[in-house]
């Protein structure tokens, strides 16, 4: 069976579930968001935590990824504080003897590491990044504030809803992580002979909700579909690591990190 995917079909596999964010119960502790506390926490982290959690918090053999978790449920800062202080029984995470201030510094660092990119200080030039965004064809699939296409996840609030490492990974390794329903590229042939392709915003054995490249929604009964091809991996091109220079990537990340609707 022929697949109907044009090579220009770029769809990022940024997990929709991440839109829940993690600050439903925002901590009011004064260390959170305070640059000195974050810097002090970073020192503590590199001295004591990187052995298990990796230098950027992305996990290692003994400790989980702190930045990108499979389930993106909100985690209160108090819960992180308690995990550092008391450890997590039954795991390799030990209790610590850090003072309250030290522990809050560490929480402030982890909060910053895993918090929305728009709230962090990000290196790079956002206006140069905007040019990279335009010249790399991102708007062929993504939209920012109504500008662009509707096939791939909307990026208007990408910096306001995702930590920087998550955005970086979505660009460089789009098919690495769980591939979520809502971003699947599909093509279908209907029983009446009509062919459609685009993104399955949802599908079941009984219905298919498809948005095409022109932004039309097709709300189909599966009984009207004769053939369907589903792409197993993200249709977002996997070669941006090669295509973009280091500076271009840094600037693109700075531009995306600045995209916040608040």
């Amino acid at each position: 069976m022929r697949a109907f995917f044009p090579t220009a079909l770029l769809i990022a596999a940024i997990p929709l579930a991440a839109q829940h964010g993690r600050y439903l119960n925002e901590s009011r502790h004064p260390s959170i968001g305070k640059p000195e506390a974050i810097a002090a926490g970073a020192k503590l982290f590199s001295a004591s935590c990187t052995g298990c959690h990796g230098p950027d918090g992305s996990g290692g053999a003994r400790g989980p990824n702190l930045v990108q978790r499979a389930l993106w449920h909100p985690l209160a800062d108090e819960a992180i504080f308690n995990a550092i202080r008391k450890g997590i029984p039954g795991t390799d995470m030990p209790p610590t003897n850090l003072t309250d201030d030290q522990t809050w510094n560490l929480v402030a660092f982890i909060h910053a590491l895993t918090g929305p990119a728009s709230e962090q200080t990000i290196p790079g030039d956002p206006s140069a990044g905007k040019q990279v965004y335009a010249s790399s064809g991102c708007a062929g699939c993504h939209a920012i504030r109504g500008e662009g296409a509707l096939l791939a996840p909307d990026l208007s609030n990408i910096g306001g809803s995702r930590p920087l490492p998550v955005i970086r990974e979505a660009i460089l390794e789009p098919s690495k992580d769980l591939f979520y329903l809502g971003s699947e590229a599909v093509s279908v042939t209907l029983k009446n002979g009509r062919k459609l392709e685009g993104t399955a915003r949802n599908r079941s054995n009984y219905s298919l909700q498809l948005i095409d490249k022109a932004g039309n929604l097709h709300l189909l009964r599966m009984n009207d579909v004769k053939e369907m091809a589903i792409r197993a991996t993200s249709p977002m091109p996997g070669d941006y690591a090669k295509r973009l220079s280091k500076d271009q990537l840094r600037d693109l990340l700075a531009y995306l990190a600045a995209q916040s609707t608040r």
Partner: protein
Amino acid sequence: MRYCLLLLASAAALMAQVKHEDILKGPRADWLTYAGNFQGWRYSPLTQITAANARMIAPKWVYRVPDAKRLASSPIVYDGVLYITDTNSIYAVDARSGRQIWQWADPRAKSQGVNRGSAILGNRVYLTTADNFLVALDRRSGGVIFMKKFADEKKGTTSTSAPLIVKDKVIVGSAGGDSGMRGFVAALSADDGHEIWRTYTVPARGEPGSESWGDLIEWGGGATWLSGTYDPELNTLFWTTGNPWPDFAGATRKGDNLYTCSLVSLDLDTGKMKWHFQFTPHDTHDWDAQSWPILVDTEINGKPRKAVLHANRNGFFYALDRVTGEFLRATKLIDNLTWAKGIDAKGRPIEIPGQDPTPEGNWVCPSVKGATNWMGQSYNPLTGLLYVITLEQCGRYNMSSQVPKPMSNFSGGGATEEGGQVIIRALDPKTGKRAWEYPVTGAGRMWTGTVSTAGGVLFTGDDDGHFVALDAKTGKNLWHFNMGELSTASPITYSVDGKQFVAIASATSVFSFGLFEPADPATPPITTVVK
């Protein structure tokens, strides 16, 4: 490539979009504005479901709204997509299958609170967040087009109502009146959210009407937490206003407290108040006027009138001339009414002395929830009847002697709600008299609205989670379905591919119903997974 882009642009331009004229026509297959039409009728011309075949109604799908606990949203429907809101969030659902197409949520919103619905124009759906952002999203993808702040939550204002879109304006209201704030209605640009006008419902010091207040005028309330209605011919908006603050302690605000507990008529282009009518001067029972101002041309007192009908929480059913604001008539909406003998010739209540809240508590009917409330009423032009959810309930009203402090959850006292019977009443606008009534089962909570159709059916809820269909002419029960939890929202009706659906939100989910059809066994397509 350039050719491709041009082709795309022209295809996009040709795609269906919602125009003002579409909303103006009122519901057909779609349901484009909170109350169905600008006149606030919650009436649909759809006729597939009738009083004769309503016994064949069956559930078609249920959509569980993620994390929802107490939905108060009335859906809108356009081009086969149903939009339902919850606190700081909105969900687009395939209106035929109930499957989610997209969701948008703002976990960074700085307030929580109920949300009553969305609005649609062009390719955008609009809602407000509890911390007073107007949000415009692409109706197809849920992508943000703009978010624009229109009020400050730090001044006690929050936002709960569905926006009303008229022409190029998004009309928004304000909530938070029970804790001190200054109510307003504002017109924002549908294009980018900028403010076009804002009309306060409590005057500033020195302005006309400010003499009806005391020292707390800056926090006087008069919230506008329900959408309003619109008369295209008069180019006029009709909006109701909430109670004065502190709710139960009137001593600090001697006077009528204009323009609280009122109906105000506003020019669409400028927001200028054309007239106001105050139902409950100097309210001390939290009887907001938040119940629908319904626009009907009918004969009243033997004379044809452009009327606005309004069933008020204070227990009376009013008819006003909507051109001039002239009081035409008031009749009793409920039987248990102890605070006023009636309404005088100018429309002012003839109050019975000694009905204010006291430190010991004062027994008054109706209760603090009022004789009716914000749930959608329905006017059916074929039966000529207005359907109103009413509550026969009394309560004990207490007054606090504490010094009022704004934004501290202080309302000047409190009130109990004891027992209570919800009754759906069909009222004749010509006379104000009841054509029929239908007492429902339940605990006297009263939060399910109505929709009625040209098929002669009135859809509403019992007070205990049953969704019911009644004969719109007689009030006879035709059908019922147990949703398993109380509904605090109003139903709508729509059609997809010629099939009529009726949808309502329960506390956690949207239910959609239609006429029974035998099952259609699934024949899955030949599926290939492309590596």
